[in-house]
């Protein structure tokens, strides 16, 4: 017994290496997931009851920001022709934060906004009254390319997320990563959204250039 203790081993004990490798193996087996579950979330409107006529929504024309995309992938933004969607996010943001004719609630909302957002209110009479009223409407043809539609939809989302994140002092990236699982992130999420609903309407495409 004593003799074997005294004898120096000339090898490092590598027995635990196997355990480490096993741990790694199990780690990979458990955590490997497909990384493609990312995308742009959208909630479709509920099914239309054929017996109930669609609600007649009276909205001032100035509160709707119209984007039409035709089968040639050309854009018509508020009656103005555009070739590409570039820069549209800025227009969306200006439209949402216009505060042209705020009511009492909207004025109170305006006062809670950080100065950087307040300064963006252009108060144009022919643009939206306040964020609660503003609606972005995207209409396509059946022949419109999906990629172009998604680009415009993406920019509309960007405008809203920019506003939300600026309001709570995060970057847009950080705001979108909020899960809402725990209290703190839920509170931040709600604080960003409060009073500024994400109103992006996607109209049924009309039958031009498609099948």
């Amino acid at each position, binding site marked *: 017994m004593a003799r074997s203790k005294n004898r120096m081993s000339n090898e490092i004990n590598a027995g635990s*290496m196997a355990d480490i490798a096993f741990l*790694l193996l199990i780690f990979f087996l458990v955590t490997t997931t*497909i990384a493609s*579950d*990312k*995308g742009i979330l959208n*909630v479709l409107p509920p099914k239309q009851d054929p017996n109930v006529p669609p609600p007649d929504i009276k909205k001032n024309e100035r509160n709707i920001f119209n984007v039409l995309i035709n089968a040639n992938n050309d854009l018509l933004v508020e009656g103005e022709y555009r070739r590409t969607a570039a820069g549209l996010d800025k227009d969306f943001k200006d439209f949402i934060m216009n505060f042209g004719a705020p009511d009492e609630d909207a004025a109170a909302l305006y006062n809670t906004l950080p100065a950087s957002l307040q300064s963006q209110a252009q108060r144009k009479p022919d643009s939206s009254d306040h964020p609660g009223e503003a609606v972005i409407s995207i209409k396509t043809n059946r022949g419109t*390319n*999906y990629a172009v539609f998604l680009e415009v939809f993406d920019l509309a989302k960007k405008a809203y997320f920019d506003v939300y994140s600026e309001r709570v002092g995060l970057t847009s990236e950080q705001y979108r990563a909020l899960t809402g699982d725990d209290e703190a992130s839920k509170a931040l999420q709600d604080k960003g959204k409060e009073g500024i609903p994400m109103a992006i309407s996607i109209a049924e495409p009309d039958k031009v250039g498609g099948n």
Partner: protein
Amino acid sequence: MSKFRKKKLGGSDQINTSALPDIIFMLLFFFMVTTVLREQDVLVDQKIPQSSQLQKLQNKTLISYIFIGKPKNTSLYGSEPRVQANDVLISSPEIVQWVNQERDKLPEADRGSITISMKVDKDVKMGPISDVQTELRNADARKVLYASTKKLDKE
């Protein structure tokens, strides 16, 4: 006899395990390389468009995938965009049935929050997509994720 005994005394009585980690590592690499998470053949073209405002879904079990694109095998399925759910190409009216099947796989509490991830090819037109969305509305699966990859900013 005595010759052999002498030799045995000098040897260690432990099995040499130094090669064991190598074997385990080989297993590890084997699994890392060969693990295919979704045993599913995609029968349609999939060039996913890029966008910037990506969100990640927390609960992956709630997601069901639908693929839309031009069939890869055009001689068999034609060149018009088709919808693939699970392993087969389906037509629009079958989507409601498919959604209900997918919903039945979920635990009862989660059935309302089923999310459809739409993996749509870049070159598809809005027509087929709108048809699919109408069916999804009929099936009351209204949470939709337009699958997309990260766009690199060129500003």
